């Protein structure tokens, strides 16, 4: 199905006919994703949408190296994924900051784990905190910050490692709508500066369209790719206004018609 690229200069991420099965606690085998193929170009922003619980996050686990595919191949930059790759960054849905560390100590975690010197790490962390607007809060603990500020710390913590591939698992779903739009702007700015490739998993279709170059729509579980849409909205985008543009509404309408069947199928199945 997908062509195999030579190592070293392949696209940022390839998933080729991947299947991933889990063993449920009662000992049965459950298929989360099946016949799943996906390609993310270098510097491309791809969003993945699908009904809740369909297996969207599973794809991120496979790319990050936290889990292995049952069948098929996962490659980054043309090389098979064998473990956690230092070029990958991951922003989680729930708070994954270390609550016992201050903001700045959270941000230095990555560089220190990777053996940088203390001065270098703290210098980098301070400059990243300045970029996400939290310079004054470096000695606060996470519980003293708002949800939006904690997400900004998480972004700084991830971006300081300069990931070439950024995986995001519904990172802003716990934020209120206004904060979320601010975070979208911030993310797009960071992304365009860093030229990373992004896989952004969300259940929010408008978020996906506003941010991404391409949107993958998944089927109800076991998930497979239902359709792929290229979002031709011009960049740079102003996320706060983009949702009122006619082209945005048109795209959103088309994809929603596609997604609705899956959402309804999932709903009737879980209700049955």
């Amino acid at each position: 199905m997908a062509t195999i690229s030579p190592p070293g200069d392949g696209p940022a991420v390839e998933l080729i006919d991947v299947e991933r099965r889990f063993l449920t606690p009662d000992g049965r085998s459950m298929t989360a994703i099946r016949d799943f193929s996906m390609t993310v170009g270098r510097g491309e922003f791809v969003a993945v949408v699908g009904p809740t619980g369909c297996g969207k996050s599973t794809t991120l686990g496979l790319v990050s190296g936290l889990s292995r595919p049952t069948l098929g191949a996962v490659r980054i930059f043309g090389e098979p994924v064998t473990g956690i790759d230092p070029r990958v960054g991951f922003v989680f849905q729930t708070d994954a900051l270390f609550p016992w560390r201050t903001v700045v100590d959270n941000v230095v975690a990555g560089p220190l784990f990777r053996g940088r010197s203390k001065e270098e790490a703290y210098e980098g962390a301070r400059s990243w905190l300045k970029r996400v607007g939290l310079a004054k809060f470096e000695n606060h603990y996470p519980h003293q910050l708002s949800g939006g500020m904690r997400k900004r710390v998480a972004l700084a913590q991830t971006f300081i490692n300069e990931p070439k591939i950024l995986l995001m698992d519904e990172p802003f779903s716990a934020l209120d709508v206004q904060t979320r739009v601010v975070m979208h702007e911030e993310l797009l700015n960071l992304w365009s500066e860093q030229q990373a490739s992004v896989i952004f998993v969300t259940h929010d279709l408008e978020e996906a369209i506003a941010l991404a170059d391409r949107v993958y729509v998944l089927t109800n579980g076991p998930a497979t790719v239902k359709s792929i849409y290229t979002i031709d909205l011009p960049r740079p985008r102003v996320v706060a206004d983009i949702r009122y543009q006619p082209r945005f509404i048109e795209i959103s309408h088309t994809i929603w018609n596609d997604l609705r069947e899956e959402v309804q199928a999932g709903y009737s199945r879980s209700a049955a």
Partner: protein
Amino acid sequence: MTDVTTLPAAIGESLAAGETPGARAARLRHYKVLAWRWAILVAFLGGWELTAATGLIDPFFFSQPTAVVARLWEWMTEGTAEGPLWFHLWVTMEESLIGFFTGAAAGIVVGIALGRNRMLADVFSIYIKVINSIPRVVLAPIFIMIFGLGLGSKVALSFVMVFFVVFSNAFQGVREADRNMIANAQILGASPWQLTRSVIVPSAMSWIFASLHVSFGFAIVGAIVGEFVGSRYGIGLLINVAKGSFDAAGMYAAIVIIMVVALAADWAMTRLEHKLAKWRPQPHGEQT
């Protein structure tokens, strides 16, 4: 017990926030709680004293508060029949402290090791369960036989009392560590050792502290039971001697001493915990 100290601070805060009616109600409630606490203490001690004095209960068996206080005073000023009180207290404290620190350290290390290593946990869990099912105090005679009448046997008993409590909490704490946080650390580049040190141990810390609170009491139990069974010094010996001479006041006096020590240790532990856990949000409604 220690929550009492946090109460006025909480009230001060709400007063400062300017919510006058609410603060007033809270202050009144606080006084009410205090009044009841004192009333119950006075009623208990007064009732004890009175019933003993009037012969309703036999002071030979139950003693009476004034006699207990008199005995404590005598022990403190003149020493006990077995030598100075402070020496006995020190012996018991030494046994408890050594047992507590070695037991807690071993419990933490083994708990974290087994918590991090599935294979080790699967192999050893059955043995730990088996040994854990032994009531610890029955080991006292065995330890006395092996380690003699001195320090060693009491420390050993304190150690096993403390070890299993701390171990099981440390183990549980490691298992309860947040999966997302672990995944986050791994992706940020943590090696297994870095992961243990900077994520697993800190997140298990609140579990471990919860066990340390209880287990200092257990360390004292271990030392005292050991002293009962066979010793030359210690508070346990004082109780044993008092029992032998039907000195009820002496037994209660020894109990009061142990109570004070255990409360002081608990207080110190709470202070230390607050200091180490300054990253945690202030608990709301912790009051009693």
